[in-house]
């Protein structure tokens, strides 16, 4: 909580004492801040994408294409889990499995479209009980 305030104050003070000496530090902090912002923006974009995919999967399920719906949700969950586990985003389930909790592993291998849909909602909401949508 105090770390960002302390960092900003230190940098301001350093700049006031000797602007040339503080210039490289400003550059480094700027790069660090931009990397942090990039991570935050990517996270938001990923969440929006997952929501869209889930919406589409729901439509497919209602239209009777349960298997296609299942595959779509499975792919979305795999992508989200890979991002959360800091694995390459194109990792397949076999690559992700060792890092996954057992319950997720079992669900992804044999869960139905309904189970996967509820699990994806949980993954998005961050709670163990799904919200009523």
């Amino acid at each position: 909580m105090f770390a960002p305030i302390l960092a900003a104050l230190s940098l301001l003070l350093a700049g006031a004492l000797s602007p040339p000496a503080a210039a490289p530090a400003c550059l480094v902090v700027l790069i660090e801040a931009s990397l942090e912002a990039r991570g935050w923006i990517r996270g938001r974009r990923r969440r929006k994408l997952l929501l869209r995919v889930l919406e589409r999967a729901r439509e497919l399920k209602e239209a009777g294409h349960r298997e296609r719906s299942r595959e779509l949700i499975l792919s979305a969950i795999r992508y989200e889990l890979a991002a959360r586990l800091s694995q390459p985003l194109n990792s397949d389930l076999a690559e992700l499995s060792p890092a996954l909790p057992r319950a997720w592993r079992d669900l992804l291998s044999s869960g139905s479209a309904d189970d996967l849909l509820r699990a994806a909602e949980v993954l998005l909401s961050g709670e163990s009980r799904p919200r009523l949508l």
Partner: protein
Amino acid sequence: MTSSPSRTLVVLVGAYSLVAVALLTGALGGVAGPPESREIFNSPLEAALTGALGGLVGYLLSFSSAGVLGLVYASSLSGMSRGSTLIDLLVRGSLLAPAVFGFSDFASVCLAWRYGYAKSARSVLKFTGYAVVMGAAAALALPPRCSTAAWWAVRLDSLAAGTSVLAIPAWAYLRSGERTMRGTGLALATSAAALLVSSTSGALGALAGAFSGAIPWLIPRRLFFRKVVEIPPPPVGPRVQRSVADDIAEVRRLILERMAEGGL
């Protein structure tokens, strides 16, 4: 074509060494002439200690500035040893060694960070030792001007001294071992190092720059750790197909358990 970290490191260090040698020999034109100090030391021990300190400061500044100050160092020493005998070449090598070691270790830490390899701070200590020995050797070989090898950093201007915070993220990686460090922790370490360098000047400024890499060790380690977003447990388990035989076996097991307890 795949690039291996080791090959990248060799290429980077090779290119850096070539530039440093070119600057040292004046082939690229030094940005500053050799320092004027011509102190003669009373004893070889004094010369060796001064050279060792030069090696230490040179290594740390080269690492901390991502190699920038190593090149400034090489440039400021251009023309110190112009001979082409084997001894002269060895002396040049010893003069440059701390700067090249510093850059090499910096590049190695950055590559370890990029590819997710573990990197121990012990390797930095090992190369610090090499730099100290090489600095002392160069000082013993060049007694009239060895003090310049130790105190070249005094000649750094503010901007050059400020570059010694460039490698703070690399130092922080050595400290935490985390690939995805928290931005606030990194920003705090960088700002604190900048404040330290800005508030000092001259020889003290150079020493502050050299030891600015210690700042991540003064900050609580948890500040570098990113909050882990735990994966919540799924709401339902997989539905396992059960057979009638399984159900009968389960009921039978329950009845037998109850009978054993004397309930039936």
